[in-house]
Each structure stands twice: as structure tokens, then as C-alpha cells.
């Protein structure tokens, strides 16, 4: 039901429409020497520090690095240099290495780790003139869907629209800060099973997770090698697309980097095709029937259906599509694969070469020493996933669990292939619910947590590019005991709903063209506050 409440698109208070220039327009001004980058960077640092104090979006802020980069960009611009991200404040998920900056993947296991090199994705942004403002909060190593599984000693980021609720995860800080800043901003995020789409949906920003192998994983503090993908977040689909285009490309330092990696944003920068037609004219959109049923909040369903209709109104053709195997077995196949890979990846954290390095004891051999360093530095969810993965790799169980999941993955890949023989893009909600309150999350069992990823695990398992784009707002009660409500004392908050689009491998261009059609609809009243 559409309530005569505030129209979030038209309202001056609309959380994602706070007047920040599109990043491309800002960059054009910077390159034309029309912006004082040093002053703008100061302004950004001040604003972001205030947001961080309220919401814990950053694990660490990097004002000194930002100021030095602003000076360097200013000097180069004065000499006629132009950068594709010149002067743009850029936040980076904590799991990406930034030279000389604490890069801890939200984990005590990487306590004090300030790497001696930058991740390829980060370096490409620096080379194009981006200003790095800080590292963003996340679930430890990416182990979560709400950014509540932070490592020992880290703060949980809170939702930009209601601090009693979660940001989503695991790239929660990236999404939260992108939503709230009033200045142009981009954020490097990363997804293993939905860690870009989920927080983008819960915070009301665009989150673009590319094809596996599009962006080099060199310098990523990894979770699961065959699943991890570095992607982008922005206030708009175009902002996110611009950032991806800078990061994407082949890298010999990553053996899984696609030989033909690359995403050409300039080719689709215009919202009109050359013939003047809508770029989505005739585009076949597969509406994923499996993900609109039981367990999906009615308001979420309504908004996402409306987004599909917007695409139809722009010339796309809607068709109902089903992915029965992915819907039923995707979560199990994903988690089996992810925890198995995680358990081997995290074996390297032993307290010797970097990160948490407790004093050695003459009473301890290798096993005792490693065990102590690991046990006192991993949080509960990290321990749980390492244990689950270790179990699945145990002699006698490997074939029954890990290899079986890898075979199911093959069948899921085939199911997508079949679907993409009939349609160009798949569409469904990103998350089945609104951003949950922390007290609701605390009541979930680990399995119930994992099941929240039902919409996002499929494209991640299949390495498919996917985009979460805000498609509407739902009015809900502010969390109990929270300070939300604004100056007017209202206890109503507006929470975003995300629509997810999935394309075949290497077709990020179609996602961008379809995603930019979708506009957030007016707020719905939430019928069933649970």
C-alpha cells in the first residue's frame, strides 16, 4: 500500500539524494581545475570523521594519506594531467591492502598489519587520482551478512537510516558511508556470497559485484579463493560503474584474473543508445519467481515488482523464470564451498610473520604456539567457519561434503546457463527482508543467519556479475530504545529496499543500463512490523 507519506525521491530529506554531484561530473570539474581538491578533501575528512563517530563506518581513517594524495593530485592537475577519479574521496574495505595503512580484514588476527604494498585494485584507483580516506568496517574476513561478526576489538557499524539496525554485510561500512556522505564518494567493496549486494540493499546505495576475475584479487586478504570478487559501491549506478571500470583489467599477479578482463564504462556512459532508443528496449528480463514467495516481506516484493515494471515501461520485456535448484540448494552448496576454502586460507594465520604475534614461549612447540595465537585472535564466527571447513575436508568426509557441493555447483552453473539462453538479465529482491534490528539478529541461529543470503549466493557461486540498486523505501518503526527520530521526534524511519539484477559473465554493461532505469518508489508503510 502506498501511503501518503514522504516521497523519498522528491523529498529534500531523501537519504540517497542529498545533492552530491555524480562522481563523473565532479571529476570533470577537478580535471578542469575548477575544484580546490585540498579544501574538498579537508571537508570530506571532517564530514566522514563525524559520520564515523556516530556509525563506526571505518576501522581506521587515513587523513594524512588523504592530504598527501590531495596535494599530489593538485600538483599534477596544474600540469595538465587528468585522472578518471581525480580528487574523489574513496573508502576501501578493510580486507584490501593499502600500503602503509592498517589493513586487518576486520580481524585481530591481522592486528597491526600495515602492508608494504597496495592491492592492484587500490593502486589503480590511486593512479587515477582517488583520495583514500579510510578503511571500512566489515564482518571479520567477510564472515557475515550484517557486519555484526566483527573481529575482537572492532566496532559494529550501524545502519545509516536507523542506528538500531544493521548495515548488512560484510561490506557494511562501505555501504553506510556511501549512503550518508553529502559529498561525492566511492567505496571499494568485496563479495564472497553477497557482501556487496546485501549492504548496498540495506543502506540504499548501488553495489556492483563484477564477474569473477574481472578485478585482480592481488592484495586482497582473502576469504574463499574461488568466490571472492572485488567490486564497487556508489550513490548511483553510474558512480559504481565508473569505479569498477578503473579497477577492472587483467593482472599477471593474480592467476585467476581473466585474460580479457576489463569493463569499458565510457562506452555506456550515455543513457541513450545511438539510435535514440532506450538502451533496454527489447531487453529480456527474467523475473525470478522462486524469490518472491514465502519468507519475502510483502513490501519488498511490491517494490521489486514495481522496479521490474519500470524496466518494462522503458521497453524491456518481462518473463517469469525459475531456478529451482539454485533456490533450494544454493545456500548449502555456497556455504560448503566457502567454509572449506576459508579453512585452508586462514591456516596461514599463525602469529609469526605478520598480524597478531604473541610472545613465543619456550614451553610451546609449533602446534601449541599456533593454536594459542589463532585461538586468542579469531572471533567466534571465524572459528565456526574454520571448524566447519576443517570438518568438510576430513578424511572420509571430503567426497560426501566438499566434492558433492562442487558437483552441485556445476548443476547450478548449468541452470543459470539455461536461464540466460532465454533472457538477458535476471531480477529479484536483493534481500528478503528490511535491515534487521540488532536485537533481532542476536536471536538468529548461525543457520538462520546463513539462510538470509538465499538471493545472493547463487550469482556468487556462479561468478556472475550482479547489481543491487535501491528501488523503494518502507516506513518502519524506529528500533526500540534508539535515539532515532530526528528533530521532529518522529519514531518512524524509512528503510531502503534493493532490487538485484544478474547478467551473464562479462555483461556488466547490461546491468548498468538496466540498473540506471530503476528509481526508488515512494515509501510504503510496513504492514507487518515483526
Amino acid at each position, binding site marked *: 500500500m502506498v501511503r501518503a507519506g514522504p516521497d523519498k525521491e522528491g523529498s529534500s530529506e531523501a537519504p540517497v539524494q542529498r545533492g552530491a554531484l555524480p562522481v563523473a561530473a565532479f571529476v570533470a570539474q577537478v580535471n578542469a581545475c575548477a575544484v580546490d581538491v585540498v579544501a574538498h578533501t579537508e571537508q570530506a575528512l571532517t564530514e566522514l570523521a563525524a559520520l564515523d563517530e556516530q556509525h563506526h563506518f571505518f576501522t581506521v581513517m587515513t587523513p594524512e594519506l588523504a592530504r598527501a594524495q590531495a596535494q599530489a593530485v593538485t600538483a599534477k592537475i596544474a600540469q595538465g594531467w587528468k585522472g578518471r577519479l581525480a580528487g574523489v574521496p574513496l573508502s576501501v574495505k578493510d580486507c584490501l591492502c593499502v600500503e602503509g595503512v592498517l589493513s586487518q580484514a576486520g580481524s585481530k588476527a591481522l592486528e*597491526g598489519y*600495515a602492508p*608494504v*604494498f597496495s592491492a592492484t585494485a587500490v593502486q589503480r584507483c590511486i593512479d587515477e587520482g582517488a583520495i583514500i580516506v579510510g578503511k571500512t568496517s566489515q564482518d571479520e574476513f567477510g564472515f557475515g551478512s550484517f557486519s555484526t561478526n566483527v573481529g575482537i576489538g572492532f566496532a559494529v557499524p550501524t545502519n545509516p537510516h536507523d542506528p538500531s539496525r544493521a548495515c548488512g554485510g560484510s561490506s557494511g561500512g562501505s555501504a553506510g558511508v556511501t549512503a550518508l556522505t553529502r559529498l561525492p564518494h566511492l567505496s571499494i567493496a568485496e563479495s564472497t556470497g553477497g557482501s556487496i549486494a546485501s549492504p548496498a540493499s540495506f543502506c540504499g546505495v548501488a553495489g556492483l559485484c563484477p*564477474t*569473477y576475475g574481472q578485478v585482480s584479487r592481488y592484495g586482497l586478504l582473502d576469504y574463499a579463493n*574461488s568466490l571472492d570478487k572485488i567490486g564497487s559501491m556508489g550513490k548511483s549506478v553510474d558512480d559504481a560503474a565508473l569505479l569498477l571500470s578503473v579497477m577492472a583489467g587483467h593482472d*599477471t599477479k593474480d592467476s*585467476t*584474473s*581473466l*585474460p580479457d578482463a576489463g569493463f569499458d564504462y565510457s562506452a555506456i556512459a550515455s543513457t541513450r543508445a545511438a539510435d535514440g532508443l532506450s538502451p533496454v528496449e527489447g531487453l529480456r528480463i527474467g523475473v525470478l519467481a522462486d524469490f518472491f514467495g514465502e519468507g519475502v516481506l510483502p513490501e519488498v516484493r511490491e517494490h521489486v515488482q514495481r522496479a521490474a515494471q519500470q524496466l518494462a515501461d522503458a521497453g524491456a520485456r518481462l518473463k517469469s523464470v525459475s531456478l529451482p535448484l539454485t533456490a*533450494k*540448494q544454493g545456500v548449502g*552448496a555456497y*556455504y*560448503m564451498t566457502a567454509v572449506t576454502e576459508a*579453512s585452508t586460507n586462514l*591456516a596461514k594465520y*599463525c602469529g*609469526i*610473520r*605478520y598480524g597478531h*604475534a604473541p610472545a*613465543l614461549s*619456550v614451553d610451546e*612447540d*609449533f*602446534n601449541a*604456539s*599456533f593454536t594459542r595465537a*589463532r*585461538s586468542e585472535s*579469531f572471533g567466534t564466527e571465524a*572459528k*565456526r567457519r*574454520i*571448524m*566447519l571447513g*576443517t*570438518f568438510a575436508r576430513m578424511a572420509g568426509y571430503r567426497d560426501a*561434503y566438499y*566434492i558433492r*557441493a*562442487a*558437483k*552441485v*555447483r*556445476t*548443476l547450478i*552453473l548449468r541452470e543459470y546457463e539455461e536461464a540466460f539462453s532465454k533472457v538477458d538479465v535476471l531480477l529479484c529482491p536483493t534481500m528478503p527482508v528490511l535491515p534487521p534490528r540488532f536485537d533481532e539478529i542476536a536471536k538468529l*541461529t*548461525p*543457520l538462520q543467519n*546463513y539462510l538470509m543470503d538465499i538471493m545472493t549466493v547463487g550469482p556468487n*557461486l*556462479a*561468478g*556472475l556479475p550482479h547489481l543491487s540498486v535501491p528501488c523503494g523505501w518502507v516506513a518502519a518503526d524506529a528500533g526500540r530504545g534508539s535515539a532515532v527520530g530526528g528533530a521532529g521526534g518522529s519514531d518512524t524511519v524509512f528503510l531502503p529496499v534493493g532490487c538485484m539484477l544478474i547478467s551473464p*559473465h562479462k555483461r556488466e554493461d547490461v546491468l548498468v543500463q538496466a540498473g540506471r532505469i530503476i528509481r526508488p518508489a515512494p515509501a510504503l508503510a510496513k504492514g507487518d512490523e515483526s
Partner: protein
Amino acid sequence: MDVTTDTIRHIAKLARLSLTEAEVEAFVPQFQEILGLFAELDAVDVSEAAPSFHALQLGEALADDAPEACLSQEQALSLTPHRQDGYFKGPKVV
């Protein structure tokens, strides 16, 4: 499968983790529940499917057999207190 506190302790040992009694007790029902999810994969007929360890067919990525710049010994040792005489210092072996 049946998960007991002994199962959890055994897995923890293999994973080089020491758990508190409270952690062991909490993990038993949680693992039981999660393994139930994994067991649902048994219902899928995978007889015709080869395992996929990646989503995309990636060829062998081989680097040229040529030396290139890498971290200096100093850089490699710069991030830990456990170093001595230009080497990492580890726990005792014997």
C-alpha cells in the same frame, strides 16, 4: 551425522584452535543444524556432474620464467617482532 562434544574437540584440534567449554557446548547444536543443511545436498542427483572448483573455465596462468622485483628481506621481516639475524623466528622444534 551425530555431532558430539568429542567431534567438536577433534575438529578444533585439527584446525589448531583451542575452544572453551562454553564454545564447545554452543557449537554442538549449531553444527548439527548446519550439517543438516549440507546433508540436503544429498538429495541432488550429481551422477552426471563433474565438480566445479571455479565458476569460469580458467586456463593455466603461467608466468614467464624470468626474475622480477619482489619484497626485500627487510620488508618481509618488517611486520613481526619474531625475527632474528635476518630470519623469521618460530616456536621451538625440539
